[in-house]
């Protein structure tokens, strides 16, 4: 886990959005650069829920910009990169398919091992029950449970199921040892197919291959405040759902509640007093501070966004007496 991926990390630019597909890059950026992003994909192991999501990770343009400015990442046009599939060498292609196959075999073996473990475990449980002197009725129920478990492990278990039921029919004098040996001869299995997460390989790593990156991401006016808070160690997430622009966490949101609801403003921008009252009440109501801030210079007064970041001032508003 403590590995460092090759820098700069390629950020996929897909149809105007910034995405990350490599799990190592995601973990690394979270650990070393306080970049969380938002997971938007389905987790294949539990696909029917929206609480835990998986890859890809969507980055705000601000996050992508911070990383590019730091030199940690670069932006790669993913659609263009995948045109490389057309010019794949025959040798690379075969090699890649062989790799996938061996990975698939490995996965098949692991799953088969796990299934055997489960079998042994359930058989042990049955033995324990029998040792307790349960009646034949109870044994039958356990057998049903064991069958269900085997079926649930979604393995090609039809032949084995027959075996196991015949074993159970053959009565309870047999030792658990003979049972396990009876089932430890798995039928030759086909290899699992694999859908890889990233396209590198078979495509050559984009950073080493072309060196042509897209320009820095365009960022909204709130970028200086984002970059300022990020440089102070805050983790920032999109915040519209909580009634603000960003939610600021003091540490990794995995472990900490957020401290601020953040709204950015330009220095000479006129603000409605009601917005400040609303923000203050909202923040205090959810035990957070309402953080209002922005750069003191306009975009036309400076040469680059970086100059604006240095002039950021922030204010925190709390609703007293609530």
């Amino acid at each position, binding site marked *: 886990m403590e590995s460092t991926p090759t820098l700069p990390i390629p950020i996929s630019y897909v149809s105007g959005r910034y995405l990350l597909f490599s799990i190592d890059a995601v*973990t690394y950026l979270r650990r070393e650069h306080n970049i969380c992003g938002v997971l938007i994909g389905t987790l294949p192991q539990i*696909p029917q829920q929206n609480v835990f999501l998986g890859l890809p990770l969507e980055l705000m343009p601000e996050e992508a910009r911070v990383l590019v400015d730091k030199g940690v990442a670069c932006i790669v046009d993913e659609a263009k990169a995948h045109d490389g599939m057309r010019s794949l060498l025959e040798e690379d292609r075969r090699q890649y398919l062989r790799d996938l196959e061996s990975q698939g075999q490995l996965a098949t073996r692991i799953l088969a091992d796990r299934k055997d473990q489960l079998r042994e475990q359930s058989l042990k449980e049955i033995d324990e029950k029998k040792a307790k002197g349960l009646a034949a009725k109870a044994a039958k129920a356990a057998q049903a449970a064991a069958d269900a478990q085997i079926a649930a492990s979604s393995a090609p278990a039809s032949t084995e199921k027959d075996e196991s039921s015949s074993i159970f029919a053959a009565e309870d004098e047999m030792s658990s040892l003979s049972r396990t040996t009876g089932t430890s001869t798995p039928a030759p299995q*086909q290899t699992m197919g*694999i*859908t890889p997460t990233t396209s590198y390989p078979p495509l050559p790593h984009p950073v080493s291959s072309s060196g042509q990156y897209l320009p820095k991401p365009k960022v909204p006016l709130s970028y200086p405040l984002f970059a300022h808070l990020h440089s102070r160690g805050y983790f920032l997430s999109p915040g519209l*759902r909580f009634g603000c622009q960003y939610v600021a966490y003091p*540490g990794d949101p995995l472990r900490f509640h957020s401290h601020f609801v953040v709204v950015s403003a330009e220095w000479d921008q006129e603000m409605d007093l009601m917005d400040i009252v609303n923000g203050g009440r909202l923040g205090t109501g959810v035990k957070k501070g309402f953080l209002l801030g922005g750069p003191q210079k306009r975009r036309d007064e400076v040469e680059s966004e970086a100059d604006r970041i240095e002039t950021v001032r922030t204010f925190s508003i709390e609703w007293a007496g609530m």
Partner: protein
Amino acid sequence: MADADEDAVRGTTVEATQIEVDLSDETQDFRLLNHLNFLTDTSSSSLPRRGEKDFEPNPTEFQADVLSASRQAMHNALAHPRLHNPKNQVIAIYAPEGPPPPPPVPPGQDPGKTSGRGASVSPDACVYVPSPKGQYFKNMGQADRKGVIWLLPEEALYLLERGSLDIRWPTSITGGTVEEGSEEEELSIPMSLQAAYACFIGRGGLTLERFTVFSSLKRIGYAISRAPGWDDSSSVEDSADEDSRNAYTQPVTRGAGLAGILGSIFNWINDPKSTSSTAAGPVIGYGIHRNYSDIYKKLAQIPWHDPTTLPTRNPLSTKPPYRVILHVFKPSTFIKKSALPPPDFRIAVINTREATTIPTLPELSALLESTPLDPPKGEKMDRQMYLRLRHGYRNVILAVVDQGVTSFLRVADVAFGRERLYESVGGSLGPKKAGNFRKKKR
């Protein structure tokens, strides 16, 4: 050594016991996933309780360990591979050119009748499944003449992402020797998740926001189809619609209205001694009133908006993004792919980085007018006024996507003017809940 200190710092943990928290609102501790034994029993996996969080980072090793365990759990969960058991592997093939165009209509035949099976494959479809099996094609995909199922990009990407579909690059792209038919499949390269995003997002109007909304609803069991308004560029040039759009600036209202009030003032100027004068006498006029209802009716001076009198407008005459692009069906609704029932929900998808302000009244009204009239029905609605008010007469759901974080809002057109409180005196008004004009759905 520093045990005492560490305990002291640990004590600062904030206990936030909130009821009814939406789990997806917050970043979840992925360690909870470890408790889910999803590999053996996916059917009964209930969601875990949310984990306890600390108030702020402190330099204790304890906290560092917990954080690193959380991150490790997250890493493991995200690194889970997408495997396809050969027994139920479904293979699909990417077709960058889309489905072959339907054969030309033989002359002398009604073009509407040639369809039969499969003429309805959308030109946006870009993945085909030669031998479809499994449950997923019940409410996804369109079959062509040969029985091959064509998937739209969002459907293909969703299935690939959940690990249910193995999409292959066509050999026309990756090249390779096509050896003896059956060998072909062996040699084609599986499409990675990354490749699928690169190829499918941006195709046929599919933005990342639309896909995020599509897959988040799909994950929890809804069936979804594209609405006619999916294509942003399509619009109605019909002049009649233009007229109605202009006419829109005059909202349809009921009640006395400005003209009515002006009229009574003019009446008074012309005939100040008239008994019906508002300025010189009671608003309801002189005379004997025996019935409160009549009095209240005459007192109703303020014009009100009646959604039932609005013309229903063509969905294509609305302005993107305030336009219905997805039709959503509850899991209980019976779906026949060739003849879809009326949808249970209509959804417009809005990207907060492109539409930074809340919709204007004309935008919102046009959106509502493009949905069919859906008056409150049923015994419960008849009894409870506040339920009626909440339900409204037309409704639409806005899916607001903020950089991958989606909020759903239900907007309903409410007719307060139709609820005559003075007529229901004595009747039950139902529980006194807030009859919000706009309410957050989740």
